[in-house]
């Protein structure tokens, strides 16, 4: 149906204010990127030189050659990649059972799942750490992965998506001789790719940006991830703001690229995971 609009949108005061807020969101990112491309001194003068056409790459040279950047990148990549992979594996399997199977205790388990979705994870900070320590999972990358799996949301998302797949398709597969597992791998998983993709990206970014848990778990210097490393860079309070900005930009840019490429998944993932309004 064509939408009829009587009052045509025009430039209103709230529209102008919106653009001010948009600018306020973009200014820190601009400063991060341009500041990382400037000699250190330019950020100590008033007014600072933030001209984007006069830049140097000295800070990046330093960060790449003098700091263990590749190690930090590798650690972060491993942690977030494994979190994304395991979250998708665990969530899709459980999501399938909740969406399409009938089993004893399903309602109870699903209620528990919903309850844990709302459970604030951070209140478990201390007991989780002690449990991880007693399982000798602390100070290991794989330990961080296993203890960071926040699968309740993932299971719910997969369940919501898989419920929309037609049952006839699965029945046809069963008639053609598929058992539960081959139906899952050959029919359900391929059809659920949009939801699984969104879930993988969400978990990857959450794993990449997580600070507190990785900070608590990883004490060995060689195991530091990007956020921890750049936090130390800034807390050492050295006067090299250029290096700090370069580190921050290197932590932020991969996520910005992933976000821009997979933008559509995000909007979809957010609305599927929440309620219908």
């Amino acid at each position, binding site marked *: 149906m064509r939408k009829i609009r009587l009052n045509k949108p025009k430039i209103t005061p709230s529209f102008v204010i919106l653009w001010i*807020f948009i600018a306020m*969101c973009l200014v820190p990112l601009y400063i991060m990127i341009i500041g990382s491309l400037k000699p250190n001194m330019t950020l100590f003068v008033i007014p600072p030189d933030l001209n984007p056409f006069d830049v140097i790459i000295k800070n990046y040279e330093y960060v790449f050659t003098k700091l263990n950047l590749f190690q930090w990148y590798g650690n972060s990549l491993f942690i977030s990649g494994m979190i994304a992979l395991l979250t998708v594996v*665990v969530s899709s399997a459980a999501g399938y059972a909740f969406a399409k199977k009938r089993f004893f205790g399903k309602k109870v388990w699903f209620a528990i799942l919903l309850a844990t979705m709302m459970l*604030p994870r951070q*209140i478990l900070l*201390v*007991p989780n750490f002690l449990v991880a320590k007693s399982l000798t999972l602390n100070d290991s990358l794989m330990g961080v992965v296993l203890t960071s799996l926040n699968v309740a949301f993932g299971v719910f998302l997969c369940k919501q998506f898989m419920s929309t797949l037609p049952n006839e398709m699965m029945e046809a597969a069963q008639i053609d001789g598929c058992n539960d597992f081959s139906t899952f791998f050959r029919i359900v998983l391929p059809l659920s790719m949009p939801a699984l993709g969104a879930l993988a990206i969400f978990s990857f970014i959450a794993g990449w*940006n997580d600070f507190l848990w990785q900070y608590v778990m990883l004490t060995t210097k060689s195991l530091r991830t990007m956020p921890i490393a750049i936090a130390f860079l800034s807390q050492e309070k050295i006067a090299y703001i250029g290096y700090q900005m370069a580190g921050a930009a290197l932590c932020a840019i991969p996520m910005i690229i992933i976000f821009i490429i997979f933008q559509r998944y995000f909007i979809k993932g957010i609305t599927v995971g929440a309620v219908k309004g």
Partner: protein
Amino acid sequence: MKSTVLSKKRRLKENIASYLFITPWLLVFGVFVAYPFVYGFVISLFDFDLVKQTFIGLENYKNLFSDEMFINSILATLKMCAIIIPGTIIFSLWVANTIHNRRKSLQSFTKVVFYLSAIVSEVALVIVWQWIFNPGYGLSATITDALKMPRIDWLGDVNFALPLVSYLVLAFTVSQPIVLYGAAFNNIPDTYYEAARIDSASQWKQFTKITLPLIKPTTTFVLITTTIGSLQVFMVPYLLTAGGPADGTTSILLMIFRNAFEYGKYGYAAAMGVILFIIIAIFAFFQFKATKSDVQY
């Protein structure tokens, strides 16, 4: 007779298969959620550090309520929540309303911009903010100089530091509500507004009488998730102000972190975790009760 035996067998098979499918989730849930949850309550009753574990009953809780630092952190967290929660709701509702009915390209551009702050590591942004709000050389000093105002020590004065920390947390939390409200607005049939216009209802009346009631489920969701999130503020105060000035921005989670991982008082910190859980549960319960609508549209 034979068929019921067969279906019984089939049902058993389906049960086994289903449990195999949910086993990985059950393991993660059991080991890293359910067990720590119970364990947290248990160790809150102990004088628990890495050397000794002595049962002391409710001693930790008794000490908590006479611990001025802890009371102070509750107050600081509530003050931040008082800014973050209404701020998030009003701001995201306002943005979604402003871009609604605008060009599609503008809608997605706005969502992308606000989402950028949420996907960029908070640690990375805190580094930039540290520079912006440095009274000696930051961008804020440039602006106050240009306005011929005295320079302000933003992060050194609690009257500025607390609202500032809250604003920066808010900047991370608004993106999801904006998208959710956008989707909720799109679900409202245009005919409602057409009818209202025929009755010559004002824009404001249309908003309060049609839009707001119809998006109530979204508001409930946003309200509860924002509350849960902002009661657990940690990263921005820890990195930007280190809980200062004079512990003015020390959140509850920051207190838990310090007691557990700096002083090694795990039992005491676990008791704080229990109190935080109770606070969150009370908030969520009353918000759910208050915003739940019996009316179905």
